[in-house]
């Protein structure tokens, strides 16, 4: 019986650590990308691990976007890039996680996807030296385009 409670506590602690890492990664990405208006990181079940603004809206609207994109291609989409008059939407799935970002128009698509993919790889634990999640985040990120 005690073992069950211990496992539950471990699971909660792990979930908390995951959310904390996602929030740190998102904060770093937001600081580093001047074109970014908002973003969210979604977990395996579609729950929002970190997001700017209303988490429920991010979860529902991101799920809708992925569902439409999956249906359109007949298979699970890996990346979606939609440019509208009001802004651009980037959505990416990697290692069971997903990231959705909204930027200003004419943001550099390859760079944005690279940053999102690196962030998800860090969170999934695929990298030995994380770029977005790790002790270097404590030092404070350098905004891109500051010119050194």
């Amino acid at each position, binding site marked *: 019986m005690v073992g069950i409670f211990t496992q539950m506590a471990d699971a909660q602690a792990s979930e908390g650590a995951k959310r904390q890492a996602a929030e740190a990664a998102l904060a770093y990405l*937001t600081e580093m990308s*001047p074109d*970014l*208006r*908002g*973003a969210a990181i979604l977990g395996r079940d579609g729950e929002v691990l970190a997001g*700017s*603004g*209303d988490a429920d*809206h*991010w979860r529902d*609207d*991101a799920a*809708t*976007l992925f569902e*439409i*994109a999956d*249906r*359109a*291609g007949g*298979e*699970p*989409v*890996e*990346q*979606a*890039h*939609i*440019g*509208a*008059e*009001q*802004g651009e*939407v980037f959505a990416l799935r990697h290692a069971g996680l997903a990231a*959705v970002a*909204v930027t*200003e*128009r*004419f943001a550099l698509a390859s760079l944005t996807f690279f940053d999102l993919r690196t962030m998800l790889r860090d969170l999934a634990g695929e990298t030995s030296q994380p770029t977005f999640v790790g002790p270097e985040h404590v030092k404070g990120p350098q905004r891109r385009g500051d010119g050194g």
Partner: protein
Amino acid sequence: MPPKPHRVLLDRVSGYADEAAAYMRRRRAARKPFARLYYSGGRGEDHATDSTAGGELFVAAGRLIEVAGKGRKQ
């Protein structure tokens, strides 16, 4: 024989007008909405705004843009 002064002026004005027209054409092409989806194996698809999937994608993207808000103040 040098060209008449008003010819020089006309050429210059029409040159600027051509430049402006080209700029507007490029801007119109760049501002055109698009929806690109990429699948595993590198397969990519473009969806036009007037297609069913394209229309749905733009509606979903519009909602996400609303959720993100106007962005950060610089």
